[in-house]
Protein backbone atom coordinates (compact mmCIF):
# COMPACT_ATOMS: atom_id res chain seq x y z
CA UNK A 1 0.00 0.00 0.00
CA UNK A 2 1.53 3.34 -0.99
CA UNK A 3 2.24 5.96 1.61
CA UNK A 4 -0.63 8.40 1.85
CA UNK A 5 1.20 11.25 3.51
CA UNK A 6 4.33 13.14 2.54
CA UNK A 7 7.44 12.18 4.42
CA UNK A 8 8.24 14.90 6.90
CA UNK A 9 10.66 12.93 8.99
CA UNK A 10 14.04 14.26 9.92
CA UNK A 11 12.72 17.61 11.07
CA UNK A 12 11.77 20.02 8.28
CA UNK A 13 11.01 17.89 5.27
CA UNK A 14 11.13 20.92 2.97
CA UNK A 15 14.77 20.94 2.07
CA UNK A 16 14.23 18.79 -0.96
CA UNK A 17 16.67 16.15 0.19
CA UNK A 18 14.34 13.86 2.09
CA UNK A 19 11.20 14.58 0.18
CA UNK A 20 8.69 12.01 -0.76
CA UNK A 21 5.93 13.45 -2.83
CA UNK A 22 3.92 10.34 -2.16
CA UNK A 23 2.27 8.82 -5.16
CA UNK A 24 1.02 10.58 -8.27
CA UNK A 25 -2.36 11.42 -6.78
CA UNK A 26 -1.60 14.87 -5.49
CA UNK A 27 0.44 18.01 -5.55
CA UNK A 28 2.40 18.89 -2.45
CA UNK A 29 2.06 22.39 -1.03
CA UNK A 30 4.61 23.87 1.37
CA UNK A 31 3.46 26.92 3.31
CA UNK A 32 6.57 28.60 4.66
CA UNK A 33 6.16 31.08 7.49
CA UNK A 34 7.89 34.42 7.68
CA UNK A 35 9.61 33.26 10.86
CA UNK A 36 11.19 30.31 9.03
CA UNK A 37 12.55 32.53 6.26
CA UNK A 38 13.77 35.23 8.61
CA UNK A 39 17.08 33.65 9.56
CA UNK A 40 18.01 32.56 6.05
CA UNK A 41 20.36 34.33 3.64
CA UNK A 42 19.07 35.34 0.20
CA UNK A 43 20.63 32.33 -1.49
CA UNK A 44 19.31 29.95 1.17
CA UNK A 45 15.81 31.29 0.57
CA UNK A 46 16.19 30.92 -3.19
CA UNK A 47 17.53 27.38 -2.83
CA UNK A 48 14.68 26.44 -0.50
CA UNK A 49 12.15 27.71 -3.04
CA UNK A 50 13.76 26.28 -6.16
CA UNK A 51 14.50 22.88 -4.64
CA UNK A 52 10.83 22.56 -3.71
CA UNK A 53 9.57 23.81 -7.07
CA UNK A 54 11.91 21.56 -9.02
CA UNK A 55 10.45 18.62 -7.08
CA UNK A 56 7.04 19.62 -8.42
CA UNK A 57 5.83 21.29 -5.21
CA UNK A 58 3.86 24.50 -4.82
CA UNK A 59 5.63 26.82 -2.40
CA UNK A 60 3.66 29.50 -0.57
CA UNK A 61 5.61 32.16 1.31
CA UNK A 62 3.79 33.96 4.08
CA UNK A 63 5.85 37.11 3.68
CA UNK A 64 7.36 36.89 0.22
CA UNK A 65 10.79 38.02 -0.89
CA UNK A 66 12.49 41.41 -0.95
CA UNK A 67 12.84 42.98 -4.43
CA UNK A 68 16.55 42.18 -4.57
CA UNK A 69 15.82 38.55 -3.71
CA UNK A 70 13.15 38.39 -6.41
CA UNK A 71 15.74 39.67 -8.87
CA UNK A 72 18.17 36.94 -7.84
CA UNK A 73 15.41 34.32 -7.94
CA UNK A 74 14.76 35.17 -11.59
CA UNK A 75 18.47 35.05 -12.36
CA UNK A 76 19.06 31.69 -10.65
CA UNK A 77 15.89 30.23 -12.19
CA UNK A 78 17.19 31.14 -15.64
CA UNK A 79 20.46 29.31 -15.02
CA UNK A 80 18.57 26.14 -14.06
CA UNK A 81 16.15 25.92 -16.99
CA UNK A 82 16.85 22.94 -19.20
CA UNK A 83 14.87 21.54 -22.16
CA UNK A 84 12.27 18.85 -21.37
CA UNK A 85 13.19 19.00 -17.68
CA UNK A 86 12.61 22.37 -16.04
CA UNK A 87 10.95 25.27 -17.88
CA UNK A 88 11.04 27.80 -15.06
CA UNK A 89 8.68 29.07 -12.42
CA UNK A 90 5.30 30.67 -12.17
CA UNK A 91 5.25 33.19 -9.33
CA UNK A 92 2.38 35.32 -8.12
CA UNK A 93 1.95 38.12 -5.61
CA UNK A 94 -0.58 40.92 -5.42
CA UNK A 95 0.28 43.56 -8.03
CA UNK A 96 0.73 46.57 -5.79
CA UNK A 97 4.35 47.33 -5.07
CA UNK A 98 5.11 48.12 -1.45
CA UNK A 99 8.36 49.86 -2.24
CA UNK A 100 6.64 53.17 -2.87
CA UNK A 101 5.17 53.13 0.61
CA UNK A 102 8.51 52.77 2.32
CA UNK A 103 10.25 55.72 3.79
CA UNK A 104 13.84 56.43 2.86
CA UNK A 105 14.80 55.59 6.45
CA UNK A 106 13.12 52.21 6.17
CA UNK A 107 15.11 51.42 3.08
CA UNK A 108 18.38 52.72 4.53
CA UNK A 109 17.80 50.59 7.61
CA UNK A 110 17.01 47.58 5.45
CA UNK A 111 13.46 47.44 6.71
CA UNK A 112 11.81 45.96 3.69
CA UNK A 113 8.04 46.02 3.71
CA UNK A 114 8.05 42.93 1.52
CA UNK A 115 5.28 41.22 3.44
CA UNK A 116 3.18 39.89 0.63
CA UNK A 117 1.82 36.40 0.25
CA UNK A 118 3.69 34.77 -2.63
CA UNK A 119 2.86 31.59 -4.51
CA UNK A 120 5.58 29.88 -6.54
CA UNK A 121 5.32 26.70 -8.57
CA UNK A 122 6.71 24.94 -11.63
CA UNK A 123 5.76 26.84 -14.80
CA UNK A 124 4.33 23.66 -16.32
CA UNK A 125 2.07 22.95 -13.32
CA UNK A 126 0.89 26.31 -12.00
CA UNK A 127 -1.19 28.52 -14.26
CA UNK A 128 -2.60 31.89 -13.28
CA UNK A 129 -6.24 32.24 -14.24
CA UNK A 130 -6.94 35.70 -12.92
CA UNK A 131 -5.07 38.34 -11.05
CA UNK A 132 -5.94 41.81 -9.79
CA UNK A 133 -5.08 43.96 -6.79
CA UNK A 134 -7.04 41.79 -4.37
CA UNK A 135 -7.35 38.33 -5.90
CA UNK A 136 -5.05 35.71 -7.39
CA UNK A 137 -6.77 32.71 -8.92
CA UNK A 138 -4.57 29.87 -10.15
CA UNK A 139 -4.89 26.37 -11.50
CA UNK A 140 -2.54 23.70 -10.18
CA UNK A 141 -2.12 20.55 -12.22
CA UNK A 142 -0.14 17.38 -11.81
CA UNK A 143 2.91 16.80 -14.02
Amino acid sequence: MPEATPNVDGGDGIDGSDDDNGDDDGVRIDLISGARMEGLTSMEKIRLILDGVRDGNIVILEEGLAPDEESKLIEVTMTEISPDEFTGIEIETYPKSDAGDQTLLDRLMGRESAQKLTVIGPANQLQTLHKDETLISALVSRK
Partner: protein
Amino acid sequence: MGLLTNLKDSISKVSDRLFADEEPKRIGIYGPPNAGKTTLANRIARDWTGDAVGPESHVPHETRRARRKEGVEIERNGRTVTIDIVDTPGVTTKVDYKEFLDHDMEKDDAVRRSREATEGVAEAMHWLREDVDGVIYVLDSTTDPFTQVNTMLIGIIESQDLPVLILANKTDLPESNIQRVANAFPQHETIPLSALEGDNMDEVYDKIAEYFG
Protein backbone atom coordinates in the same frame (compact mmCIF):
# COMPACT_ATOMS: atom_id res chain seq x y z
CA MET B 1 37.57 91.07 -2.45
CA GLY B 2 39.67 90.09 -5.46
CA LEU B 3 40.77 86.95 -3.66
CA LEU B 4 37.17 85.97 -2.96
CA THR B 5 36.19 86.63 -6.58
CA ASN B 6 39.09 84.50 -7.84
CA LEU B 7 38.18 81.72 -5.43
CA LYS B 8 34.58 81.83 -6.56
CA ASP B 9 35.66 81.70 -10.23
CA SER B 10 37.95 78.75 -9.55
CA ILE B 11 35.21 76.79 -7.80
CA SER B 12 32.84 77.61 -10.64
CA LYS B 13 35.34 76.39 -13.26
CA VAL B 14 36.02 73.16 -11.36
CA SER B 15 32.31 72.42 -10.98
CA ASP B 16 31.73 73.22 -14.65
CA ARG B 17 34.47 70.82 -15.65
CA LEU B 18 33.15 68.10 -13.33
CA PHE B 19 29.72 68.55 -14.82
CA ALA B 20 31.06 68.49 -18.40
CA ASP B 21 33.10 65.35 -17.75
CA GLU B 22 30.20 63.50 -16.18
CA GLU B 23 29.76 60.07 -17.71
CA PRO B 24 26.57 59.68 -19.76
CA LYS B 25 23.89 57.94 -17.79
CA ARG B 26 23.17 54.34 -18.79
CA ILE B 27 19.47 53.97 -19.37
CA GLY B 28 18.20 50.40 -19.52
CA ILE B 29 15.21 49.63 -21.72
CA TYR B 30 13.33 46.94 -19.82
CA GLY B 31 10.05 45.11 -20.11
CA PRO B 32 8.52 41.74 -20.91
CA PRO B 33 9.31 39.94 -24.20
CA ASN B 34 7.70 41.40 -27.33
CA ALA B 35 6.83 44.76 -25.76
CA GLY B 36 8.76 46.62 -28.48
CA LYS B 37 11.96 47.41 -26.58
CA THR B 38 14.30 46.97 -29.54
CA THR B 39 11.91 48.86 -31.83
CA LEU B 40 12.07 51.75 -29.36
CA ALA B 41 15.86 51.49 -28.96
CA ASN B 42 16.24 51.54 -32.75
CA ARG B 43 13.83 54.48 -33.05
CA ILE B 44 15.81 56.53 -30.51
CA ALA B 45 19.19 55.53 -31.97
CA ARG B 46 18.11 56.25 -35.57
CA ASP B 47 16.57 59.61 -34.65
CA TRP B 48 19.72 60.86 -32.91
CA THR B 49 22.67 58.88 -34.29
CA GLY B 50 21.47 57.46 -37.61
CA ASP B 51 22.34 53.87 -36.57
CA ALA B 52 20.19 51.00 -35.32
CA VAL B 53 20.78 48.99 -32.16
CA GLY B 54 19.65 45.51 -33.17
CA PRO B 55 17.22 43.38 -35.19
CA GLU B 56 13.49 43.46 -34.38
CA SER B 57 11.18 40.47 -34.61
CA HIS B 58 7.70 39.30 -33.67
CA VAL B 59 9.25 36.05 -32.39
CA PRO B 60 9.80 36.37 -28.61
CA HIS B 61 13.36 36.62 -27.28
CA GLU B 62 14.85 38.04 -30.48
CA THR B 63 17.13 40.11 -28.22
CA ARG B 64 19.18 37.65 -26.20
CA ARG B 65 22.12 39.86 -25.29
CA ALA B 66 22.06 43.33 -23.75
CA ARG B 67 23.17 45.83 -26.40
CA ARG B 68 24.53 49.25 -25.57
CA LYS B 69 24.43 52.28 -27.84
CA GLU B 70 26.79 54.84 -26.42
CA GLY B 71 26.65 58.59 -26.48
CA VAL B 72 23.14 59.20 -27.79
CA GLU B 73 22.75 63.00 -27.71
CA ILE B 74 19.15 64.12 -27.41
CA GLU B 75 18.49 67.82 -27.91
CA ARG B 76 15.57 69.31 -26.02
CA ASN B 77 14.76 73.00 -25.54
CA GLY B 78 18.24 74.23 -26.39
CA ARG B 79 20.12 71.77 -24.19
CA THR B 80 21.66 68.41 -24.95
CA VAL B 81 21.17 65.29 -22.85
CA THR B 82 23.68 62.51 -23.49
CA ILE B 83 22.74 58.95 -22.55
CA ASP B 84 23.86 55.41 -23.27
CA ILE B 85 20.93 53.24 -24.28
CA VAL B 86 21.00 49.63 -23.11
CA ASP B 87 18.51 47.44 -24.96
CA THR B 88 17.91 44.39 -22.77
CA PRO B 89 16.36 40.96 -23.37
CA GLY B 90 12.71 40.67 -22.32
CA VAL B 91 12.37 39.49 -18.74
CA THR B 92 10.40 36.36 -17.88
CA THR B 93 10.38 33.65 -15.21
CA LYS B 94 9.97 30.79 -17.68
CA VAL B 95 11.31 29.77 -21.07
CA ASP B 96 10.08 26.69 -22.90
CA TYR B 97 11.74 25.88 -26.22
CA LYS B 98 8.44 24.38 -27.44
CA GLU B 99 7.05 27.93 -27.75
CA PHE B 100 9.53 28.56 -30.55
CA LEU B 101 8.44 25.48 -32.48
CA ASP B 102 5.22 27.40 -33.25
CA HIS B 103 7.35 29.89 -35.18
CA ASP B 104 8.51 27.35 -37.78
CA MET B 105 11.75 26.60 -35.98
CA GLU B 106 13.54 23.25 -35.88
CA LYS B 107 13.97 21.68 -32.44
CA ASP B 108 17.73 22.25 -32.32
CA ASP B 109 17.30 25.93 -33.18
CA ALA B 110 14.47 26.27 -30.66
CA VAL B 111 16.53 24.69 -27.88
CA ARG B 112 19.50 26.93 -28.72
CA ARG B 113 17.28 30.00 -28.77
CA SER B 114 15.75 29.10 -25.41
CA ARG B 115 19.18 28.56 -23.86
CA GLU B 116 20.39 31.92 -25.16
CA ALA B 117 17.15 33.51 -23.95
CA THR B 118 17.68 32.27 -20.38
CA GLU B 119 21.23 33.60 -20.41
CA GLY B 120 19.91 36.91 -21.72
CA VAL B 121 17.31 37.25 -18.98
CA ALA B 122 19.92 36.51 -16.30
CA GLU B 123 22.18 39.11 -17.92
CA ALA B 124 19.36 41.68 -17.96
CA MET B 125 18.71 41.16 -14.25
CA HIS B 126 22.40 41.59 -13.52
CA TRP B 127 22.51 44.86 -15.47
CA LEU B 128 19.49 46.09 -13.53
CA ARG B 129 21.12 45.43 -10.16
CA GLU B 130 24.56 46.71 -11.05
CA ASP B 131 24.92 48.76 -14.18
CA VAL B 132 22.05 51.07 -15.08
CA ASP B 133 21.31 54.60 -13.83
CA GLY B 134 17.72 54.79 -14.99
CA VAL B 135 15.05 52.67 -16.66
CA ILE B 136 12.65 53.07 -19.55
CA TYR B 137 10.01 50.42 -18.90
CA VAL B 138 8.20 49.42 -22.08
CA LEU B 139 4.80 47.75 -21.99
CA ASP B 140 2.64 46.47 -24.82
CA SER B 141 -0.54 48.48 -24.24
CA THR B 142 -2.65 45.83 -26.01
CA THR B 143 -1.93 43.26 -23.27
CA ASP B 144 -2.75 42.96 -19.56
CA PRO B 145 -0.15 44.90 -17.55
CA PHE B 146 -1.04 43.08 -14.29
CA THR B 147 1.61 40.40 -14.74
CA GLN B 148 4.00 39.16 -12.13
CA VAL B 149 7.06 40.08 -14.17
CA ASN B 150 5.87 43.69 -14.41
CA THR B 151 5.02 43.81 -10.70
CA MET B 152 8.37 42.38 -9.69
CA LEU B 153 10.47 44.45 -12.06
CA ILE B 154 8.83 47.73 -11.12
CA GLY B 155 9.31 46.75 -7.45
CA ILE B 156 12.99 45.96 -8.06
CA ILE B 157 13.49 49.28 -9.91
CA GLU B 158 11.73 51.24 -7.13
CA SER B 159 13.73 49.51 -4.42
CA GLN B 160 16.94 50.72 -6.09
CA ASP B 161 15.62 54.29 -6.34
CA LEU B 162 16.24 54.34 -10.09
CA PRO B 163 14.27 56.91 -12.08
CA VAL B 164 11.76 55.06 -14.25
CA LEU B 165 9.72 56.19 -17.22
CA ILE B 166 6.82 53.90 -18.15
CA LEU B 167 5.94 53.78 -21.84
CA ALA B 168 2.67 52.30 -23.11
CA ASN B 169 3.76 51.10 -26.54
CA LYS B 170 1.83 49.93 -29.64
CA THR B 171 -0.78 52.69 -29.53
CA ASP B 172 -1.15 52.23 -33.29
CA LEU B 173 -3.04 48.97 -32.66
CA PRO B 174 -6.82 49.12 -32.16
CA GLU B 175 -6.71 47.01 -28.96
CA SER B 176 -4.36 49.49 -27.27
CA ASN B 177 -5.54 50.50 -23.79
CA ILE B 178 -3.34 53.23 -22.32
CA GLN B 179 -5.55 53.78 -19.27
CA ARG B 180 -5.16 50.15 -18.22
CA VAL B 181 -1.38 50.61 -18.11
CA ALA B 182 -1.72 53.90 -16.20
CA ASN B 183 -4.05 52.20 -13.68
CA ALA B 184 -1.59 49.36 -13.12
CA PHE B 185 1.20 51.70 -12.07
CA PRO B 186 -0.50 54.80 -10.65
CA GLN B 187 2.65 55.80 -8.75
CA HIS B 188 4.40 56.52 -12.08
CA GLU B 189 3.70 58.67 -15.11
CA THR B 190 2.69 56.69 -18.21
CA ILE B 191 3.56 58.01 -21.66
CA PRO B 192 1.78 56.52 -24.70
CA LEU B 193 3.66 55.94 -27.95
CA SER B 194 4.02 53.83 -31.04
CA ALA B 195 7.73 53.10 -31.42
CA LEU B 196 6.98 51.41 -34.73
CA GLU B 197 5.15 54.40 -36.25
CA GLY B 198 7.09 57.06 -34.32
CA ASP B 199 3.91 58.47 -32.78
CA ASN B 200 4.31 60.79 -29.77
CA MET B 201 8.12 60.52 -29.79
CA ASP B 202 8.43 64.27 -29.06
CA GLU B 203 6.82 63.75 -25.67
CA VAL B 204 8.99 60.67 -25.08
CA TYR B 205 12.15 62.71 -25.73
CA ASP B 206 10.90 65.54 -23.51
CA LYS B 207 10.40 63.04 -20.69
CA ILE B 208 13.77 61.32 -21.29
CA ALA B 209 15.45 64.73 -20.94
CA GLU B 210 13.38 65.51 -17.84
CA TYR B 211 13.94 62.16 -16.10
CA PHE B 212 17.50 61.35 -17.10
CA GLY B 213 19.07 64.69 -18.03
